[in-house]
């Protein structure tokens, strides 16, 4: 077994999917020779050719719109959007076409499209390169939204997403592209795609997180041991739909929950979780569900992002508050 980075794990997952199914096509800006600005598609064009690994013209609506056509023709397009902030020219195609095709065709048409989006902050980038727009997709019926928190999940989840007959928006935690883990490609994935994963068992409170915040929450949980607290950490993995069963089971056990995401506070995934947990776990709760998130401002200039983003201290502060009830 070798250690592999999260970025390379997605690369390997794409490669495996392309080897298995000749209908899988990868497309996006700068993904060919360059291998993508994060090198996630490195080497794929060399090995699978320009017909299957397509450097597209610079137009996101075009990328998704033509993916719809390719899907209608029996292909399984995997589209890369270069950065989170640049998905919006494609938003109409995603919301009005990709998400609704199955519904309005009464199930006759499927849209097996994966839209890969490197997302989130913490890399010192200029504006539009650090956003967390997952809610804007999770809110749309017909789309599934997922995010991986570690290299092993990255490897399997991208493949599972590609085999899905529903369209999937796959949020990749770009600041974790270089995180490493052991990957055994011969052991099949332990979970189906739309299942959450308890990544640390605990008893005192549950941290619910996904994507880049999984690592942050695991670190916070380790730090909390010093305060005599034993935190459970759940990597949600799937945002639309949520794996409510796993969430409820954990919260019923610990009786306290803090949701952590980089996306702004209001109307974020945390809002939905808080509502559902309140509805389903009301009599088990010792405290309201709290949220530790980005603030309700646009993503700030990068010199302030450390203050904007939830970090270990802010997660622990959230834990203090949820334990204070």
């Amino acid at each position, binding site marked *: 077994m070798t250690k592999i980075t999260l970025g390379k794990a997605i690369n390997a997952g794409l490669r495996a999917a392309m080897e298995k199914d000749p209908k899988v096509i990868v497309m996006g800006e700068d993904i060919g020779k360059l291998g993508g600005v994060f090198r996630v598609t490195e080497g794929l064009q060399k090995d699978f050719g320009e017909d299957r690994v397509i450097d597209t013209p610079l137009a996101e*609506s075009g990328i998704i719109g033509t993916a719809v056509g390719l899907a209608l023709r029996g292909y399984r397009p995997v589209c890369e959007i270069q950065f989170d902030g640049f998905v919006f020219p494609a938003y109409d195609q995603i919301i009005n076409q990709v998400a609704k095709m199955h519904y309005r065709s009464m199930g006759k048409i499927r849209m097996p499209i994966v839209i890969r989006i490197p997302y989130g902050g913490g890399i010192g980038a200029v504006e539009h390169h650090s956003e967390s727009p997952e809610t804007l997709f999770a809110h749309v019926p017909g789309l599934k939204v997922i995010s991986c928190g570690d290299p092993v999940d990255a490897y399997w989840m991208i493949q599972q997403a590609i085999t899905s007959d529903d369209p999937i928006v796959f949020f990749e935690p770009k600041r974790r592209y270089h995180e490493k883990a052991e990957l055994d490609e011969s052991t099949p994935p332990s979970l189906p795609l739309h299942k959450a994963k308890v990544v640390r068992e605990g008893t005192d409170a549950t941290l619910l997180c996904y994507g880049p915040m999984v690592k942050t929450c695991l670190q916070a949980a380790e730090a909390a041991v010093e305060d005599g607290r034993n935190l459970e950490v759940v990597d949600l993995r799937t945002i639309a739909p949520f794996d409510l069963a796993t969430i409820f089971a954990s919260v019923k056990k610990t009786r306290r929950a803090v949701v952590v995401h980089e996306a702004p506070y209001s109307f974020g995934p945390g809002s939905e979780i808080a509502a559902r947990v309140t509805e389903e776990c009301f009599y088990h709760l010792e405290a309201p569900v709290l949220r530790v998130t980005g603030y309700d401002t646009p993503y700030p200039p990068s010199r302030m992002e450390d203050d904007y983003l939830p970090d270990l201290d802010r997660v622990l502060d959230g834990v203090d508050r949820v334990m204070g009830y």
Partner: protein
Amino acid sequence: MSESVPGPAPEVFAPHEAPVSPPQASEEVEFVQLLTPEGERVEHPDYKFDLDDETIKGFYRDMVLVRRIDSEATALQRQGELGLWASLLGQEAAQIGSGRALNKKDMVFPTYREHGVAFCQGVNPLNLLGLFRGVDQGAWDPKDNNFHLYTIVIGAQTLHATGYAMGQQRDHAIGDAENGEATIAYFGDGASSQGDVNEAFIWASVFNAPVVFFCQNNQWAISEPIDRQTRIPLYQRAAGFGFPGIRVDGNDVLATYAVTQQALKRAREGSGPTLIEAYTYRMGAHTTSDDPTKYRLNEDLEHWKLKDPIERVHAYLSRHAGVDHDFFDEIDAEGDKIAAELRAGCLALPDPVLTDFFQNVYVEETPQLAEQRDQFVAYAASFEGEG
């Protein structure tokens, strides 16, 4: 005086005969050139450059200074003082020629690479650095210098420019080639594929808006060569939208000046939009994060080095205008001085505080946001006095 919408039917250049096999976009077709790479003046039947050598000396100075500012910014990025820098290296003539053609009342909508145009408009280069350092997202006031904020989302500003021009039209600020107003939109070859840019062409055309679309075709959109965006020369696209398009040697500052000036005049007098394709080359990486060795050959670079926009003016001035060493040395020294000031200014840029950034989400802070700001302040204060 200008009419309101729609204006007079734009003069439409006859579309080119459809070629049997379409020419590749990167294939060299004729362009307007007034100064050869060797520094020799040439004439063009439609475009004259009739300004004196003093003006050309001024262009030379501008180009040297912006190249120096640019190289200092690149160095600052390497030293960790900027998060990123998008170099204009190689595009000085396109930017200075077009920038110097602008009148005081004309409005500019830039991308993220228009440092040369910003310089012409009098924007303090330190303000440009703020965005790349991550202390702000463009802190200058566009009204101060008629220079809008940098736009990073590819192509979006072309529509803003068109809308602004429609405003100029409705304000009856056009109709006179000298005193009228015009707008210029900068964008790249890659941007030409965006829906927004094509919509901007349509709007500008049907409303006859006083806007000049200035496309710097630097042959690359990050790693993608121009052939990935178009199979015909970009300027020829204008014909399909119903307004004139022209290709200019983007490394010839006299030509970019003359062509832009004519297009601006057309706009100001109410004759509508023009597409200018400035044929140039991105001599550096896309940005400091990019590694061009992954996708392009060094030979191309060597080839374009021979067409350097500054060298040819240097050659012209020393050979034909009797300009001696002192002139060039003085400008180099001035560049070094500006660069040193820029560096000092950059290092002294105050680090911003997040509290300031709650304030401008809305014109008036909402109660919810005020509450979040207070919580943030209290939370940050809880760390004070700690190690």
